[in-house]
């Protein structure tokens, strides 16, 4: 009985938070344990492009903090976003992270902090490891179609990625 009450209370809490939460996207990213070969923490970029392939927001950038020599190796992110403005890169970059589970939230605003216009976008996750591989995964994100949940299958450099858009429908 107590168990039931607790469960329904959590349920109620979940429902209410879904109703009143501001729109956001959450990426549940897993960096797998890789035991083969030399292991270096990967460079990770998570960003959003519009339907024309123009970058609108770099959500996360995890890089080695010494120098910019390797930025070019996050190849698509570098071509689309990184090379445009190095001070911008310094502003968003943070340190590489070890294998593990990470939750990345995005409030659907662009690089300038303005809310995105409702349209179709693509979320990209690029994971590159020195002496290792590179994987580029993508998920379409239609801001006119309401909430959704997507699961991207694991690749060599990424575990299963869950992408959740919430707070769009009320």
């Amino acid at each position: 009985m107590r168990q039931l009450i607790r469960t329904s209370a959590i349920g109620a809490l979940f429902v209410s938070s879904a109703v009143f939460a501001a729109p956001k996207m959450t990426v549940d990213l897993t960096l797998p344990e890789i035991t083969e070969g030399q292991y270096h923490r990967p460079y990770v970029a998570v960003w959003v492009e519009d339907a024309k392939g123009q970058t609108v927001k770099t959500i996360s950038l995890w890089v080695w903090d010494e120098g910019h020599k390797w930025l070019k190796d996050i190849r698509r992110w570098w071509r689309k976003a990184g090379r445009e403005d190095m001070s911008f890169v310094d502003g968003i970059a943070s340190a590489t992270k070890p294998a593990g589970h990470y939750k990345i939230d995005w409030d659907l605003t662009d690089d300038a902090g303005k809310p995105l216009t409702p349209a179709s976008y693509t979320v990209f996750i690029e994971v590159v490891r020195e002496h290792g591989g590179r994987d580029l995964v993508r998920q379409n994100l239609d801001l006119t179609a309401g909430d959704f949940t997507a699961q991207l299958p694991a690749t060599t450099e990424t575990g299963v990625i869950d992408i959740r858009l919430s707070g769009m429908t009320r």
Partner: protein
Amino acid sequence: MKLRLLALVSALCISPLASSHDRWILPSHYNVSAESLEAVWITSDVSASNQVFMFDKPVTASDVRVYLPDGKPSSPSSSYTGGRKSVFDVQLLQDGTYKFEKEVTPRYFSVYKIKGKEGMVRSRLDKKATAAVMPKDAYELKGSLNVARVETYVTRNKPTDKVLAPKGEYLELVPITHPADIVENEPATLQFVYDGKPVEGVSVAIMKDGSLYRNKPEEISLTSDKEGKVAMTLPAAGRYLLHASIERPSPDKSLADKTVSEIFLTFEAGLE
């Protein structure tokens, strides 16, 4: 047998240089990222070969010019000439796109036959000068003016356009899709101009690195359209050698019958 002979003869007729090797500059990196005050070294190989990017024939690197992103010409920091290849180093200090090219020197080339002797006699002089020195019984004197551009582009941080502009002499390649933006599976456009104007009918051959390790060359053949443009979508990331050529009647027929203008461009198609 007859067919093969015919093919050989027609190949010889196309250009006296038709049998010559591809020449190329192969930089170590095409796109680099760097902090503002950091200098980035690029080393490049220069050679000529029939297989793409195999070091085969000595080609000097001492005449390589480096055009900086601001448009100013510069020279390599150092260079070495070897038996099968040459090497030059360049330090990138500015952000933007650099052009590396071998000095462009138009050269006359003539050929003639001698009665009773097999084959052509080659001459490094124009027709008039060749006529003056060739034996009296020589015949079928033909001459061409040959112009070859051997070039590549390298970008540090954000790409710029200044070095992409044509100079307005002979055949030139203008990358409409910036070289730093050529990516596998994405359409890219290049334009050819002759004396600064778009030119139709340029033969373009694009070959991927590593032809030595393939049974077939897998060459992509294109011809420029009315606007001088060719469109390509490369199926795989990697390094490519582009060879473009066009023949035009020479303005002064006493010196050469035709002008043969060629371009050898090395570039990379990035990963998607």
